[in-house]
């Protein structure tokens, strides 16, 4: 219980720091704190496999990607500008929207049994880290490769589409165009290189 409150303080503080930091690198550091705290929260929710995935995928892969892009962009000409402060104009509608949304949330959860829940699955709730209880790696893997195999395969397709899209977008500035002219140029360059090599 105490752990939850400590973690939620960390989560909210680092989220606010991430959004309000002047430099994107500070945002990345705040996001790292946020993801680490969230991984501990996942352990408290009996989701040990997803806690590890959170550390590996988010903190390990996605944040490193952000750091590389920030390093790549800020090594060029223009430094980042924080931009105009939009908070004074937006604060009144923002507070209104948030209060309305929390009102809807409270109304939806007030007397529904969604939150209370009931045990409906074969796996049993047990201590975190014990084998073959709800949320353990064996339980997760069994569900992923039997009942939810199709979503898992679709995930592979999504990742492949993302890889191809990234390579197309940012891979090469002058893509290879298979035209007759280009082929002739390549052939001439090769011939010249061979001739030069013969002279040496």
């Amino acid at each position, binding site marked *: 219980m105490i752990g939850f409150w400590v973690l939620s303080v960390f989560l909210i503080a680092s989220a606010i720091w*991430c959004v309000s930091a002047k430099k994107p690198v500070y945002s990345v550091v705040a996001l790292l704190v946020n993801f680490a705290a969230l991984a501990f929260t996942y352990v408290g929710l009996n989701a040990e496999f997803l806690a590890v995935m959170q550390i590996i995928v*988010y903190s390990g892969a996605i944040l490193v990607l952000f750091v590389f892009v920030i390093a790549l962009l800020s090594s*060029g000409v223009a430094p980042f500008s924080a931009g105009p402060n939009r908070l004074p104009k937006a604060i009144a509608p923002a507070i209104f929207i948030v209060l309305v949304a929390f009102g809807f949330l409270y109304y939806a959860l007030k007397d529904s049994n969604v*939150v209370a829940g009931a045990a*409906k699955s074969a796996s049993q709730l047990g201590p975190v880290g014990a084998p073959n209880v*709800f949320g353990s790696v064996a339980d997760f893997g069994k569900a*992923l490769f039997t009942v939810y195999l199709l979503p898992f395969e679709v995930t592979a397709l999504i990742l492949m589409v993302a890889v191809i899209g990234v390579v197309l977008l*940012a891979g090469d500035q002058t893509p290879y165009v298979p035209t007759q002219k280009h082929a002739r140029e390549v052939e001439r360059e090769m011939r010249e290189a061979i001739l030069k090599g013969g002279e040496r």
Partner: protein
Amino acid sequence: MTVPAVDYVALASVIFFIGVAGVLLRRNPLVMLMSIELMFNAANLLFLTFARAWVNNAGHIFAFLVITVAAAEAAIGLAIVVTVFRTEKNVDVDEVRSLRG
């Protein structure tokens, strides 16, 4: 002593709205992408909360899928940012208007 699910719902909605505020208030595309990651994580927290409330690991599976989609989204978004920066020399999303009619 377990934490009630309502507390997790409140925490996730607070993080989600901080992410919304980041997307709306900041004009740096990198910070906007990070705010979107915050919102993904709030959704994941809700998935896991209700998965434990119902002792049903469908929530775990779909949180896993959300992590995958977030990774793909970050990769493509950052590629777009790099491509725009190569031509515009600018990373303010209000200044990028070459697609405007």
